[in-house]
């Protein structure tokens, strides 16, 4: 998220102008264009299996098999990544000014090492309300988490 925001800030891009790719150009061309796509999880490279919603959540064991990705942390991160993209584009404008502030404040002051997706959803909604009131920003964050299936 914050890597993409740095890129957007450096390029002066609004949320709808950004490519929302992580690690663009890091792979040889035959493998794909980037490591992740927050806009379209699962499409960035050859073996990109990231889901964008909870319907594609991969319940992998947190064991020492390197293929299980420590319980799927790099695979299932497509879901909160996509929620951030949805919130940022719904709010509009420069993503670092509102959506970025909501997520940064939440991650640094409201979550713990054992927080789960639902905690992230609920805390970002509460944070949006604290920072911007119960208006369009908060509604956009709420809608994003509903869209990816983390909140019913």
């Amino acid at each position: 998220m914050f890597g993409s925001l740095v890129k957007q800030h450096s390029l002066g891009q609004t949320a709808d102008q950004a490519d929302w790719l992580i690690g663009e150009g890091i792979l040889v061309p035959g493998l794909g264009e980037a490591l992740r796509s927050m806009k379209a999880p699962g499409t960035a490279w050859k073996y990109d299996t990231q889901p964008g919603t909870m319907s594609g959540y991969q319940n992998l064991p947190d064991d020492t098999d390197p293929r299980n990705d420590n319980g799927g942390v790099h695979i299932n991160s497509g879901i909160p990544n996509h929620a951030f993209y949805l919130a940022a584009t719904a709010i509009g404008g420069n993503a670092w000014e509102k959506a970025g502030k909501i997520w940064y404040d939440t991650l640094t002051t409201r979550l713990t090492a054992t927080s789960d997706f639902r905690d992230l959803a609920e805390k970002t909604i509460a944070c949006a309300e604290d920072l911007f009131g119960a208006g369009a920003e908060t509604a956009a964050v709420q809608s994003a988490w509903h869209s990816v299936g983390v909140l019913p």
Partner: protein
Amino acid sequence: MREPRPLRSRAPGTASAFYHDGMSAESPHDPDLSVAIIRGGGVGGFVTRTAVSADSLPAEAASGLRRRVRSVSVDAASAQAARPSGRHPDELLYQVVIDDAGERTTLELAESQLPDSVRDLAEYVDTRPERTLEIEPPAGP
């Protein structure tokens, strides 16, 4: 397309395993020794497979590979017994697959649990110009 995983047996619920499967060599031209290091997790989440066969190496390097495999075999049981119960979140995970004269040994350890012998073997495989390096698909549907 996902490649078939190595045959293995494993006690349910074990966090890592060291086991022999006794499978036959894949090719009569490669009956001796090959080593594959599969890594996953870590910062990027890629699954990579770095492999080398003794028959692709000059004699001296093949001896170096065998010497390191022997050290791993000696170390592995104690490494399993001594491994810490917890792992560092999101750390790099290693699966070491050794095929030696028809017998397969598979060792799974997290980065923070690697004994020096396994680290030395992995580094040796990584630095051999004869090695192959592939990116594998992660687990999933």
